[in-house]
């Protein structure tokens, strides 16, 4: 128990962070502690309240800090991939994709066409899965608790699809540097097509329950307003930014994996409030489904892993017959491949915003520095600005609308 230190410094925090009104007792400082049902994870908010109104809000993060960046420096490029799943744990394939794209950019690896289409499929399916969790949890925060059950039921179908391709429901590590782990099984395409037929009806149900519901409107319209220039100045990206009318989507600005060939819209809303962000994400569901059906049509037979043997493992069928393949397999999995010296930054569009991987190589087999520009970390900075002047109950709606994942914030 020697490493469990008691919470110290709460009174000092009061004086330094909040000023005289709080220290004098005129306003109340409330700790919306790390364990709270509505904070979507371990987020601690120190609120200065004047009655029920939030005068100042100070987020305190770090309760889920896992040391992923330092731990990745101690592993080879391939083994470090496993840690990226667990960062933003609702966007596993997207995190894998960002890291793999950065490694491929640094090392100069070409990815075959079929692998790129599969990656787009994975990223968009993951986007739908993440938005389902967002919808469920943020509607539940506003006390529409049946939406949580409905969304998780729909998400189970997606998790079955992920289990088909990657073997696991969540942390699949399916996207690897050079391509993807293995080819799609034949049940994949029918399963995805069945899902694409199933989902629009369900989404229409949820929209019917929420979009013009006077209670929902009362709780979300004109709550958590952030103007476009404020949002950009504070580094906000993703659906939260598009809810303020700024047309910025990394899939359009810096296309990767062949996104320039797909026909989709970028939903924009002008409201700048929680309701606008809700509308943007509901429309993103439909755009993701459009991309998925186009990607299914673009699937052509081919290789799913690069044929550059420095970066791809040998096929398992060769291991029983060829000594060189065995040696290659052994060295690939123990020592790994080396990257040239240099630094790259690869942005992608995660369901939360711009997820970027800044990768520095030093000629060795381990990354010299990996830094993830995570969207939730930057979006959370705006919480203080958005919540001042609102009631505590509105704060819960605002946190739900920014769609943060604490694994993304703290890494």
């Amino acid at each position: 128990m020697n490493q469990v230190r008691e919470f110290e410094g709460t009174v000092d925090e009061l004086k330094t962070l909040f000023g005289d009104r709080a220290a004098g007792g005129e306003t109340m400082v409330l700790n919306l502690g790390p364990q709270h049902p509505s904070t979507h994870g371990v987020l601690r908010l120190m609120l200065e309240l004047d009655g029920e109104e939030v005068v100042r809000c100070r987020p305190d993060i770090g309760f889920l800090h896992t040391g992923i960046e330092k731990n990745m420096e101690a592993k080879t490029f391939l083994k470090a991939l496993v840690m990226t799943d667990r960062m933003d744990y609702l966007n596993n394939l997207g995190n894998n994709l960002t890291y793999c794209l950065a490694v491929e950019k640094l090392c100069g690896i070409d990815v075959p066409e079929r692998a790129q289409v599969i990656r787009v499929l994975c990223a968009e399916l993951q986007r739908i899965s993440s938005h389902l969790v967002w919808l469920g949890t943020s509607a539940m925060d506003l006390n529409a608790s049946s939406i949580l059950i409905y969304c998780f039921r729909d998400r189970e179908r997606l998790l079955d699809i992920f289990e088909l391709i990657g073997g696991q429901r969540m942390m699949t590590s399916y996207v690897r540097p050079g391509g993807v782990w293995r080819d799609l099984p034949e049940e994949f395409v029918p399963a995805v097509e069945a899902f694409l037929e199933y989902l629009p009806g369900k989404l229409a149900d949820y929209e019917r329950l929420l979009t013009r519901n006077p209670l929902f409107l009362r709780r979300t319209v004109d709550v958590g307003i952030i103007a476009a220039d404020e949002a950009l100045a504070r580094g906000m990206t993703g659906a939260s930014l598009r809810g303020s009318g700024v047309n910025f989507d990394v899939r359009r600005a810096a296309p990767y994996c062949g996104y320039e060939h797909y026909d989709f819209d970028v939903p924009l809303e002008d409201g700048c409030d929680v309701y606008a962000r809700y509308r943007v994400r509901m429309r993103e569901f439909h755009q993701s489904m459009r991309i998925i059906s186009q990607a299914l049509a673009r699937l052509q037979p081919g290789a799913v892993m690069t044929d550059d043997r420095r970066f791809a493992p040998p096929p398992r069928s060769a291991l029983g017959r060829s000594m060189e393949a065995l040696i290659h397999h052994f060295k690939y999995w123990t020592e790994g491949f080396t990257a040239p010296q240099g630094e790259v930054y690869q942005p992608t569009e995660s369901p939360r915003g711009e997820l970027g991987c800044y990768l520095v190589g030093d000629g060795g087999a381990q990354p010299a520095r990996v830094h993830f520009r995570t969207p939730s970390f930057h979006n959370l900075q705006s919480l203080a600005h958005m919540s001042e002047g609102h009631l505590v109950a509105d704060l819960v709606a605002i946190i739900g609308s920014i769609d943060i994942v604490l694994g993304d914030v703290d890494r």
Partner: protein
Amino acid sequence: MTHIDTTIASLREKHMHAIEQIISFRDETTLLVSAGALLHICRDLRYDPALGYSVLADLAAVDYHPQRPRFAVAYLLHALKHNARLRLRVLLPGREPRLPSVTGLWPAAEWPEREAFDLMGIEFTGHPDLRRILMPADWEGHPLRKDYALGYEEVQFSFNWREIDLRKDYAQE
């Protein structure tokens, strides 16, 4: 001429001596700038209407130990209207690394600078609230530095399971 070329030409005019090196690698441009001129260069990049780098995408600190100079801070800037990305890298000495804060230009730098301070120990002068953000407030040391141990715990295999188990500090009640 791409926007990056325009930027470099414009910066060269005003800050000839401050730009130490221009690196172009995999279609990305990195400018190595000196710490003293950082704020002036950033101000031009931010407020010059022809350049318009209105978004700070990220701020990352790197430790090159045991190479000297030891630290670097990379600023990833994004000009939204021109869809151009530029990286500025500033090299810092290992002893007392210090840089001016850019939160006055881009408020988005507030938390990334706190993170660089917390995990790497780089001080940003002029930051409104420079304290630890990810580690507990009373933590000692800066974890992401190369001379900070990973904190690896010895893995229990069947041959050493018993002896590690006896040493391990389990909670009793």
